[in-house]
């Protein structure tokens, strides 16, 4: 009995719930739609109960603080303080409050925006060091990048609209055609993996066998 509880029943749950989602797309049956809506609501509630990421962060950084890892433990302590501050203040003030918004706008937004935007500098050194015409393929890649950057820069289309037309033509032909081919592959791969998971052929998400 316990062996059935450990693997077969969870696999059955995956199959039943997954098939419900798929069938609702193809068949308009009121009972099916009502069940689908209920499952979606349950999914939202379930999502709100899972804090594994935060717990893992606390465990990792907590261990560093306990061990007093040199050169690191005080940063980890600060991280734990920030988690606690944002969590507690968010619950006490409310995540929609002006005070919380102030914290988000002046700490999280500049940090998040700058962390992502800093890649601009790495792209600059990449453009300088890596974008070289070594063969026909890289030559085409570079030419295409060049023409698109020129088309995107308002300075050039302002002098001659043809630059914008060239850029748009590259997108309307090469980008559409090639990325569509990629999308076919990704789509078919996704469908195959999804079906394999639903029927129980892919069980990596279940973890190690006992």
């Amino acid at each position: 009995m316990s062996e059935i509880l450990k693997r077969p029943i969870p696999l059955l749950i995956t199959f039943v719930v997954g098939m419900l989602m798929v069938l609702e797309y193809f068949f308009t049956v009121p009972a099916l739609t009502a069940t689908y809506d209920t499952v979606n609501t349950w999914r939202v509630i379930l999502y709100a109960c899972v804090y594994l990421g935060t717990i893992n962060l606390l465990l990792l950084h907590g261990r560093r603080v306990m061990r007093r890892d040199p050169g690191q433990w005080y940063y980890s302590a600060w991280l734990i303080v920030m988690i606690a501050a944002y969590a507690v203040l968010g619950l006490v003030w409310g995540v929609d409050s002006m005070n919380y918004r102030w914290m988000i706008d002046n700490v999280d937004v500049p940090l998040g925006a700058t962390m992502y935007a800093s890649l601009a500098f790495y792209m600059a050194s990449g453009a300088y060091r890596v974008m070289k015409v070594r063969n026909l393929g890289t030559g085409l890649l570079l030419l295409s990048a060049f023409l698109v950057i020129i088309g995107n820069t308002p300075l050039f289309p302002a002098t001659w609209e043809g630059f914008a037309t060239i850029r748009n033509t590259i997108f309307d032909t090469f980008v559409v055609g090639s990325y569509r081919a990629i999308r076919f592959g990704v789509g078919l791969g996704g469908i195959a993996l999804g079906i394999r998971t639903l029927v129980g052929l892919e069980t990596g998400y279940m973890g190690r066998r006992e």
Partner: protein
Amino acid sequence: MISADPGIWIAAFFTIAATSYVFRDNPAFKFAEHTFVGCAAGYSVAWNLTQLQRVGLTPMMERGIYTYLIPIVLGLTVYFQYSTEYRWIARYGVAFMMGQGIGMALRAKMREDFIMQLRATVTPLDSALGIVIFILVITGALHFVFTVKRVESEPFRTLTIIGRYGILVALGASFGNTVMTRLGQYQGRMIFLIRDWLGLVA
């Protein structure tokens, strides 16, 4: 005139600290990095607990929808991952999440990523643009066929080479757009530092 708003000074400090990493790793960046991770984890906890209360607990109490206990229990089973002996109990919550997620992701893919895309490839064959797209889609797809040996010999080999060059042109275009994205993002920070913090322009 330089800003007197403490919030803007805090934002400016974090902007400069986060940028400093491109020159060299340093304590200011490490501090900024740990602050960022801590903020993100902290507000996600506050957010999700608020949603749990609004979407789950309050309706359960006020409207008597006690079936909401099922997803709450399933959510709690996930924490059995930390137990060596009862780790298998976590599979129930994970199985529900996986089934619902995969079902949702799978159902529209065939129509949107395959049938509609195929239709858009073959229908406009009366224009030069349509013909070029058709050729690039076929040759691009052939380029990714690794399981059929026939594709490695002529005439398919020429088609795969055409496909490869088409993909390289597309990737170059993508790089061009990525340059604009990253520059535009950092531009926003520069405007903040020069205008909002230092007050050097109106």
